[in-house]
Each structure stands twice: as structure tokens, then as C-alpha cells.
């Protein structure tokens, strides 16, 4: 105890007080001036989900884009909606492009956090029609789906959503996403006899009543990695999980089959946060990613489907057959993301009440 005290005192005397002051001044300057961390001119900042997906985008999109325009793309991770709101409210937007899930197209616009897309620069005509893929504040990025994957060693092949809710014929746990917009409400309604065209607005009460029939057999997953793990190791025999995770489980040798007829098609979107310092270059970037070439390139690099149907002309048939939007998904139900954008909070309250009851 006393020896430590002596040592500390000696240390303090050793360094002159001026040195300490200089040091702390430098420390404060570093904290107070994030400009040193900011992007160089001619470089846009793209907030992404990171990981192997970002690596694929770098090859398929960022490098060719930089070659073509001279505009670099720097990525940052942690593209949470809360951070966009914090940046915009503080008047210090540091991101130029953010990839988000589609509900944020409407939530972000309603909260006035987004720059309108400059459709003089961004050509929206080749984008897949219908289902609100394009909004005044967003463009779609790639297609993905939530679909039924099952462990073929543990379960026979489910043919319909009614089968998913039949625990007698298909015993075992089902893995669903823990958030309300994970398509399990839609699946329940389809299983209960609702026509796909009549899904929205969702009859949540009816969906929850149907879900109650298999309540003890539901395993909710919090992250997509967990979803993949659940069906891979057989903790769940059937999962309503992202197609990328089902394909990745298959690729890793898990006995997983995909029921493409039981798919919900959705997409990710790109937005420009309000006050983005390089909004114009961001628009050029968005325009580039929506060319058929760029869409085909990303679809070859990663298992997401192109939002520009023409890109399928440049994708080999066996590749197209596993991608969202490909021919095997002609029966896929398109998620009512606009409805979700407006109703996520209210629907979540109902689902939470059901979970806790």
C-alpha cells in the first residue's frame, strides 16, 4: 500500500507538470477534433453491415466505382438506425450512404432523417416494379428472402405453411426471428387460410392465435448466425430464416433443404442521411450500384438477388436458381414493408404482449 503511494508520487515528480499538461491538451484535442478521422475529399463514407458481405461489395461495387469515377468508398460498421438519428439531430452527419432494412425507408423519412434521392442522377426505370422498392428517400440494394429451411435428417419436407404449424406430422422446434417483422405473422396467416394478396394490413390477433397453437415449439432467434446454428445442429428442425444463412449452412455441409415455395421476398435499401457531406457523390454511387452490370456483379459475388431484373441475363442459370427473385421463387410472397414501416412499433407491442402472456 505505502510502496505504491511512493511509486506514484515519484512518477508524478518524474514527469514535469508541463509535460502532463501538454499530454492532456493533446488528448483533449484528439477527442474534440474528429476531423482527423473524417473522410478525405472525393471519398464517400458507406455505413455497412460489415463482414463478408462488405468484402463482396468492395470487389463487386467499390473498386469498379472508384476506377470509373475517382470517388473512393470508405466503409464504417455499425449502421444502426439510432446512430443515424443521433448524427442528424446533432447536425454532424458523417455518413454518405447507409444500407438499411426496408422498414427504415419509411421510418427514417417520417423522422426527417433522409435526403431525397436525386432521380435525375439515379435511373429507377430498370428496378423491379411494384411493392414499393423505390421511395422518394431510398433505392433498393439487393433482394433477399426469409424462407423455410429444414433439416432433412430430422424432418420430412414441409409443402405448405400449414405444415409448419402441424407439429404432429412435423415434430420438433421451429426457429423464427424474434422481431415482429420476421415474417412469422405472415406465415401464420397463410397457414390459417388467408390469401397472399389479402395479407396486409396484417390481422395480428388472428396470426397470434394461430401461433399459440405451436407456442411451445417455437425457438426465437436473435441473430441470423443463431438462426443458421439452430437448423444446422438440429435444435430446430424447421426454420424461417434468411436465404443467405440457409445457403451458407448447406455450403458448410449441414443436411439442410430449402423450400423455395415457402419464401417471403424482401430487400435491403440504401439511403442518404440528411446533411450527408458528399450527398452528390453518394447519388452517383447509388446510380452505379443500380446498373445491370453492378447488380449482376454483386449477385455473383454474394447470394443476394439483383433488384434489376435485367441483371439476370448476365447471371448463369445455376446461380440464378438459388438467388432471391430467381425462377424458383415465382411463388414467393413479397413482404409488405411499407405496412411494416408504419406499424412496426404497434405490431411489436402486440407480439411482445403475446410472448409475455
Amino acid at each position, binding site marked *: 500500500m505505502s510502496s505504491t503511494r511512493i511509486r506514484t508520487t515519484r512518477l508524478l515528480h518524474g514527469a514535469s507538470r508541463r509535460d502532463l499538461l501538454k499530454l*492532456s491538451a493533446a488528448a483533449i484535442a484528439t477527442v474534440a477534433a474528429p476531423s482527423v478521422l473524417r473522410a478525405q475529399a472525393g471519398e464517400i463514407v458507406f455505413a455497412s453491415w460489415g463482414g463478408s458481405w462488405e468484402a463482396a461489395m468492395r470487389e463487386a461495387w467499390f473498386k469498379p466505382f472508384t476506377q470509373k469515377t475517382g470517388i473512393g468508398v470508405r466503409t464504417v460498421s455499425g449502421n*444502426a*438506425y*439510432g446512430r443515424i*438519428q443521433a448524427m442528424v439531430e446533432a447536425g454532424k452527419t458523417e455518413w454518405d450512404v447507409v444500407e438499411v432494412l426496408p*422498414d427504415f425507408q419509411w*421510418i427514417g423519412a417520417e*423522422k426527417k432523417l433522409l435526403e431525397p434521392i436525386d432521380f435525375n442522377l439515379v435511373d429507377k426505370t430498370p428496378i423491379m416494379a411494384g411493392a414499393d422498392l423505390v421511395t422518394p428517400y431510398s433505392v433498393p440494394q439487393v433482394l433477399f428472402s426469409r424462407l423455410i429451411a429444414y433439416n432433412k435428417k430430422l424432418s420430412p419436407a414441409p409443402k405448405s405453411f400449414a405444415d409448419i404449424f402441424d407439429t404432429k406430422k412435423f415434430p420438433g422446434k421451429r426457429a423464427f426471428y*424474434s*422481431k415482429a417483422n420476421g415474417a412469422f405473422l405472415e406465415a401464420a396467416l397463410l397457414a390459417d387460410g388467408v390469401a397472399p394478396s389479402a395479407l396486409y394490413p396484417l390481422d395480428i390477433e388472428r396470426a397470434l392465435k394461430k401461433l399459440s397453437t405451436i407456442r411451445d415449439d*417455437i*425457438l*426465437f432467434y*436473435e441473430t441470423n448466425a*443463431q438462426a443458421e446454428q439452430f437448423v444446422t*445442429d*438440429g*435444435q430446430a428442425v424447421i426454420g424461417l430464416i434468411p436465404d443467405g444463412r440457409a445457403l451458407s449452412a448447406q455450403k458448410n455441409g449441414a443436411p439442410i433443404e430449402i423450400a423455395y415455395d415457402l419464401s417471403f421476398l424482401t430487400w435491403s435499401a440504401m439511403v442518404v442521411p440528411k446533411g450527408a457531406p458528399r450527398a452528390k457523390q453518394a447519388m452517383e454511387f447509388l446510380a452505379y450500384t443500380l446498373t445491370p452490370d453492378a447488380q449482376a456483379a454483386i449477385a455473383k459475388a454474394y447470394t443476394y438477388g439483383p433488384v434489376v431484373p435485367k441483371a439476370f441475363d448476365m447471371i448463369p442459370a445455376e446461380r440464378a436458381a438459388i438467388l432471391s427473385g430467381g425462377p424458383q421463387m415465382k411463388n414467393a410472397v413479397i413482404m409488405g414493408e411499407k405496412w411494416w414501416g408504419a406499424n*412496426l*412499433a404497434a405490431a*411489436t*407491442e402486440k407480439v*411482445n*404482449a403475446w*410472448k*409475455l402472456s
Partner: protein
Amino acid sequence: MPARLRSAGPAILILPGFLLVAGLFVWPVAQLVATSFGDKAGALVHYSKIFTETTYLRVVSRTLLLSAQTALLCVLLGYPLAYQLNRAGRIGKALILVCILIPFWTNLLVRTYGWIILLNPQGVINGLLRQVGLIEGSLPLVYNSTGVLVGMTQIMLPYMVLPLAAVMSRLDPAVMRAARSLGASPLAAFLKVYVPLTLPGVLGGSLLVFMLSLGFFVVPAILGGPRDLLLAQLIEFNINQTLNWPFAAALSTVLLVATVTLYWIGDRFFGLGRLWGAR
């Protein structure tokens, strides 16, 4: 240097820390609390929602219940451990400390996923029990409150053992010898002298574990089931998904008030501050 400044020396040393706490903690917290009241629909709309709607009452009560259960389990496991830690010789002490501290320093996510490997229906524990013939199917050890309790207790145990061991080590061994020499059996001396004298440590450690448990996010999210929806998860959802910050702020304020109140009670009645030398 002027004499007045020199005599203010120690105070100046506190200043940077004080400014840091004030600027990076007190001010943002004040803003957070202000956000929770600042809604066009009325200052208390979010609070009345939390305290009148069954869903939120359930979330609050589950958070409190799970935290209390964690604290209780930590006492039951931590007391004998701290007792042994205090009595063991040099090597024994080092061994126990290593067993407590290595998990303490291991990443929370790693430990949480480790529990899944042990607890899941196809996991190590169920496999072992099936092999020795104790069970036929599998015990539901994870994706329910059991899983959450196991995970939280393991993470919180050091917060119980270390303060408790500190209190025990400060106890004068002569007191126990006196009790024995006055005719108390070992058990009676332990129950009537040792336990009451270490009770402040038990209460202090329990409060510490309870308060820290209130804000748990990762463990219940990964090891819990649908019913283990806790306050921290609701806060995260409202901040990052629906951007309903006023409601998230109100939920956070409830957590904050609960924690501060508990700390105040602990400090006022059980001398919680003494555990880490605040007095």
C-alpha cells in the same frame, strides 16, 4: 506558483475527472431524463404506459425478479466460495482466484455461447444425463429462465465473491476464537457470530449483483426464451428500430431510478460504499 493555487493542488487534481464525469455522464443523463418527459402528448405519457400496460409491467417485474434470483443464487454459491477463499492457503487461494478471475476476464459473448453448448437439448449436460440413464428426453435448460439464470449467475458471481471475501478477511479471527472459548460449538459460532458479522458483505454484494443485473442485455437475449424479455432489450428496440427515443428514455429512467434508489438504500443501511472503500 502562488500559495493559494498550491494549497488548492489536490482539488485541481480532481478537476479533470470531475469535468469528465460531469460532461460525459451527468449532462447526457440529464438530457436523457428530459427526453423522457418531453412529449407533445404530455410529460408523463411514457411513464403511464410503462406503469399501466400489462406488457410493460410484466417486463419490469420480470427484470426485477430475474435480477433478484440472480443475486440469491450468487449468495448461495458465492458465500461458501468466499469463505474457502479466505481460509485457503497460498496455493488454494491462488487457485480459487484464478477460477474466479479467468471467466471474469473472458468475453461475455464467448461465455454465453459456451453455455449454449453445455445446456442445449443436444448439449453436453443433457448428453451426459442421458448416457448415465437419468433422463430419457432432454431437460429444458436453455431458451428459458433457467438458461438466463445460469448465464447471469456465472457472470455475476465474481461481483459477489470479491466484496464478500474482502469483508471476511477484515473480520478479526479472535472473535471466532472467543466464541469457541466461551463454549459455542463450531456450527453455533459460525451461525451466531460469523454469519451476522459478514451479513453487511452479503447484503452489499447482493445489491451490487442485483443492480448490475437490471441492465443485462446479451445474456437474456441469447439464453432466454420469449418470456424473458427484459428492460434492456426493450430499450434497444426503441432506440435502434422504431426510433422512439422518448419511450426508450423513460424506460432507461425507470432503470436508473431503481438502481440509484437501491444504491442509496444499500449505502444508507448496509454501508455499501465501504465495500469499495468509499468511506
